């Protein structure tokens, strides 16, 4: 293996990891915002996320024969997924979490796990009504085309497809939009106030329940959009395929510092790169002296995420961008 090949692989990891990382980041934002206001791991977020993917499948396959610009189809799928997933998330909060407000922390956590399992089978049932389980997503024309050159420079070594670029651009727009929303609007200020101290924010005239609902709406909508991106990137999903990406997105949120929005993005990117690198690392086994790398199967990349989680909680429990807190007695 010469230096050229190593460089090419690393470049592909950089770009592939970026598109995976922003996907994790979008989903991680849903976890981190909910955690910020409720200190709850919303396990059901992985199903809210995959609901978006199923909506994308329905829109894309429904419009498959229709002569329509691919980007309009994507816009429709994105809007539908954001609406459905956002409302689903609000509904979950209203029915399952709000009655438990004020209970000890593990009670809503266990409830969230239960909601996640119930939703998995409800989705399976709804998809099953159409006689399906594994869904294969038809992409709009041209989305899977490879990009070989930009401004005359040959970039075919990057293995980039149009959909990867769409994914990165949409995610970047969403992150900028969310940043504006949280830091520069009244709603954003209210969300931050509730996250900081729910009781005092109530005294300042903020309706905490309404803000929590809105946070679930925003987080769910982001999750739904993440689902559309997931469907576009992998083109295959079923009612259960939200669990593992959801878990990793949560890992990303913890990695960056839970409750911290830039942290979630950083965590997602780190995780995306780590996972993509682990997926191809066995290729480096042919380099003299690094033969042991050849034993790392691509399947072990999932382990990398969890080991990274344990490591970060062990070394820097507050996450990469989180502030350390001391325990009050």
């Amino acid at each position, binding site marked *: 293996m010469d230096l050229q090949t190593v460089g090419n692989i690393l470049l592909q990891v950089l770009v592939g990891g970026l598109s995976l990382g922003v996907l994790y980041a979008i989903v991680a934002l849903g976890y981190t915002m909910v955690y910020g206001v409720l200190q709850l791991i919303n396990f059901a977020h992985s199903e809210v996320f995959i609901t978006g993917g199923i909506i994308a499948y329905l829109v894309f396959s429904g419009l498959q024969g229709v002569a329509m610009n691919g980007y309009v189809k994507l816009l429709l799928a994105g809007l539908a997924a954001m609406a459905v997933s956002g409302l689903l998330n609000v509904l979950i909060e209203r029915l399952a979490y709000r009655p438990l407000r004020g209970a000890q922390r*593990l009670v809503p956590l266990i409830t969230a796990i239960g909601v996640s399992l119930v939703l998995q089978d409800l989705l399976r049932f709804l998809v099953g009504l159409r006689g399906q389980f594994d869904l294969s997503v038809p992409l709009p024309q041209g989305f899977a085309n490879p990009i070989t050159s930009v401004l005359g420079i040959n970039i075919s070594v990057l293995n980039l497809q149009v959909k990867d670029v769409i994914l990165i651009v949409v995610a970047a727009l969403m992150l900028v939009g969310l940043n504006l929303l949280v830091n520069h609007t009244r709603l954003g200020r209210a969300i931050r106030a509730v996250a900081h101290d729910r009781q005092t924010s109530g005294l300042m005239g903020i309706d905490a329940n309404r803000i929590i609902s809105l946070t679930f709406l925003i987080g769910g909508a982001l999750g739904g959009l993440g689902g559309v991106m997931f469907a576009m990137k992998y083109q295959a999903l079923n009612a259960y395929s939200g669990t593992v990406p959801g878990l990793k997105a949560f890992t990303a949120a913890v990695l960056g510092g839970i409750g911290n929005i830039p942290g979630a993005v950083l965590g997602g990117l780190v995780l995306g790169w780590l996972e993509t690198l682990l997926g191809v690392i066995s290729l480096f086994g042919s380099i003299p002296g690094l033969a042991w790398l050849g034993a790392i199967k691509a399947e072990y990349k999932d382990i990398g995420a969890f080991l990274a989680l344990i490591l970060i909680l062990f070394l820097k429990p507050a996450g990469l961008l989180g502030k350390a807190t001391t325990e009050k007695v």
Partner: protein
Amino acid sequence: MTSLSASPRGLGGDRTLALLAYTAVTALLLIFMRGFVADGPARLLAPVLFGAFLLSLLFAYQWRAAGWAKTLVFAVGIGFVLPFMGRDNTSYFDLVIQMLIFAALALGLNIVVGLAGLLDLGYIAFFAVGAYLWGVFGSPQLGAVTGNPVFANGVNPNLFWLFIPLGVLAAALVGVLIGLPVLKLKGDYLAIVTLGLGEVVRIFANNLDVTNGPQGITPIESAPVPWLNTLAQNLGFSEDQYRLFFLYFLVLVVIAVVILVNYRLDRSKIGRAWVAIREDEIAAQAMGVPLLRTKLLAFATGASFAGAMGVIFAAKQNFIDPKSFDYFQSIGVLSMVILGGMGNIAGVFLGAVVVTLLNLMVLPTLSEVLQQSFPNLNQNLDPSKYQRLIFGLVLVLMMLYRPEGLLPSARRKAEMHADEPAPDSLVTQNQLEGDTGSEVFSPGLSTMKENDRTGSER
């Protein structure tokens, strides 16, 4: 169901006659109706009859009745009715053994979650350790891995007896290894990390050569017990039921040990230390409870039950693959603990029986009846595939409406009703600061304060 929640002592009169009558009626119905409920839509009655009979064992435990009557009900139920049904229909045998295996798992998880208050979402990993330990050594897989023709059929099946304690040791060791790095974490962080580690174990099982990857391992031996086989033969069991006959009694013995250990631990110094940690870690530490060691002990003890049952599970199934050990199985065991009532042995047992009955009898029966009635039914709507729904509904409904479980332990019940006299209980009023006006309590779940990210060992 009111009798489930009512105190056995608060019911007043003696119920010996009622117990005997109920047991006799349900047992006779189960036995004599078995032909009637064997096929057609009447099959839907089979789980009802079986469940009604199993309830008599619960009543024998709960009701106030003469000791001889209770003993009689247990002896006849466990010694005669269940094996009789098993002889008639092997699936009953399979189901009962599976219930007992899950009950042991739930009792192990009960120590970790119910007593020590550590939410472990990767518990099934310890079960996998036991199952793969015997799965590899007790099958041709050992010959394939070592390349040694001596082990072409695995080790001597008699070593099964040795592998049960080995499974306990191996699982406890893995429990300590996993526990050491993660037990510093608290609450939801511990939950997510244990979930991740459980997945790591499954991913290894899915990819290593030793475990034969996703194809799994088969056939797995069980210990030869000629005298028991002769006994089974004389009792009219068919040859393919001998193994289940043996494992049924073995599981009963193991579960008796597990219950005894659970019971003794609950009332020991260690048990009180676990409860103290669950209620308030800092206070417990201040009282001289060594946090890490006590938590590790809870982890290892819970794991060891799962290890022993894993060995037996491998022998019973004759086949294991990584699918039996995925994340939602861990949640399944958790739902058993939550349904029955954390911290209470009878409650946890009840939870395991109910959830297993729902998953392995009610759902499959429903799907078979549906398929018979509607042969063209969409395969994707097959009820037997909707196990997650059961686990999920159990968790959500219990947390929302009855967080203390169907059969809460006396200590827990006292906590739930703090206004009533409860001389030997800790009254848990330590809610979140800033959260007021809530009526929801959850005894058995550790109390959390804001910003509890990691342990207090600094």
